[in-house]
């Protein structure tokens, strides 16, 4: 019940395309859903986050879509750029408990 399932494990997208990463959770107590971006040799950094009272949040080219009834959320990267190539982790948290997905390695072809 504490798992966060993330897919795909890896993703290759052409420059300018849309990258989509999906996550699913089980525990309905989770109330904060962040996405982290990690470049090689660096620690993860918060990219964008959403609370379950909204269905979508957009920041620049990055959008989170949230489906509370299905217990699923996804990250969409519009107009994907080579600089977006990184590993992306979704997460779900409640208070100070946070569960991370296993990560998606995204590669944007130039």
């Amino acid at each position, binding site marked *: 019940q504490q798992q966060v399932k993330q897919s795909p494990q890896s993703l290759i997208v052409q420059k300018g395309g849309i990258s989509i990463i999906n996550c699913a959770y089980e525990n309905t107590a989770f109330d*904060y859903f*962040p996405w*982290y971006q990690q470049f090689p*040799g*660096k*620690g*993860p*950094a*918060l990219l964008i*986050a959403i609370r379950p009272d909204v269905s979508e949040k957009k920041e620049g080219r990055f959008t989170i879509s949230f489906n509370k009834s299905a217990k699923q959320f996804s990250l969409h990267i519009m107009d994907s750029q080579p600089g977006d190539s990184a590993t992306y*982790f979704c997460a779900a*948290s409640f*208070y*100070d*408990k*946070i569960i*991370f*997905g*296993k*990560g998606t*390695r995204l590669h944007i072809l130039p």
Partner: protein
Amino acid sequence: GAGVSQSPSNKVTEKGKDVELRCDPISGHTALYWYRQSLGQGLEFLIYFQGNSAPDKSGLPSDRFSAERTGGSVSTLTIQRTQQEDSAVYLCASSLAGGESYEQYFGPGTRLTVT
């Protein structure tokens, strides 16, 4: 403002030796987390501190691993009698527990290599 810092950035040690990894969280952050990341893998939770106490040690892989936090600030992760399977990047994160979010701020990690 300073972020989370970790030292050393790289550590090479011989099998069987003890190592200490240090984390300096963001000032005022009461929550501190340790994770382990093997090459190309996800984030493996190790231990969580709230202040100086550790309410969740469930991720520590064996009794060779221990951690402490003093003064509600600096934390040290100690690995005794290191094994080759301990080779990984050890990440520390801190969080301002409370308020509207629990965003974790990660340090750059310590890359541990056990030879």
